[in-house]
């Protein structure tokens, strides 16, 4: 049990931020994403089940925990800028940046869940399409299609707002 704890700590040290961003892509809320990461790690610690590929298992567990939280609490993804971006006081943002972040948040909220999740997990969490196919349990063709369709929509929305 002690060695499992050490293994989990090592994975958390290395991939904690990536796991958090994976969950953030589903929940659209920092607090709920942290809850999902916590639930996934706690679940493994509580049961003591150590699958062959613990890292891959944790990524799937975090995503499933995030989906469960959204279903259980009947949450809807709101994507407010304070939920997905670092808070204003820490970064000392100006009005222009604030406006840009608001437009990105609005643009993301207009995408489908699959498109938004794939874009954020690929671009923000830095996961490859192959990893995402495994994580989401979908063919790689669907993942790339969601990504390209979503990023095209997002780009068009941003350009429209610029115009």
């Amino acid at each position, binding site marked *: 049990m002690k060695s499992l704890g050490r293994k989990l700590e090592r994975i958390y*040290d290395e991939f904690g931020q990536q796991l958090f961003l994976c969950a953030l892509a589903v929940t659209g809320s920092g607090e709920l994403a*942290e809850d999902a990461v916590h639930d996934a*790690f706690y679940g493994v610690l509580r049961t003591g089940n150590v699958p062959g590929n613990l890292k891959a298992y944790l990524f799937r567990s975090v995503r499933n925990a995030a989906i469960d939280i959204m279903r259980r609490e009947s949450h809807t993804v709101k994507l407010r800028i304070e939920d997905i971006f670092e808070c204003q006081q820490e970064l000392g943002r100006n009005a222009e940046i604030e406006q840009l972040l608001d437009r990105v948040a609005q643009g993301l909220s207009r995408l489908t869940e699959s498109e938004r999740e794939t874009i954020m997990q690929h*671009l923000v969490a830095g996961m490859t399409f192959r990893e995402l196919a495994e994580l989401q349990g979908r063919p790689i063709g669907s993942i790339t299609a969601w990504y390209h369709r979503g*990023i095209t929509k997002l780009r068009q929305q941003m350009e429209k707002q610029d115009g």
Partner: protein
Amino acid sequence: MDEFEREFKSLPWRRASNALGERIFGRQPRSLAWTGLFDRRIAIRWAAVFVLTAGVIGHLLGTYGLSARSARLVQAHVSTELRIIETNNKRNSFDLTGDTFDVLPGELTLNIQGRKEKEE
């Protein structure tokens, strides 16, 4: 990755709070433990390796280095002539005074040559 994707990636996305690690494991993640001291993340295990290595090097220097103690040990390996007072089948008597006394209480080794070897 085009310019739009790069800009999107570089936005100030939220990060997991430091409290999350504490919440999961009941303590601060190990990699953060020395952050304040070195202003960067250094894993404790590397700090432990550094301390152990420094200890081993210190021990080796203390034992074999040019310290006062090792100099005394080197001096103890001087050669001296040992005078035989009496030697026969029953009794062997040596003179341990004079220069020989200075070597004491170090280890005393006797090289005894056989009669034939001596004659050659």
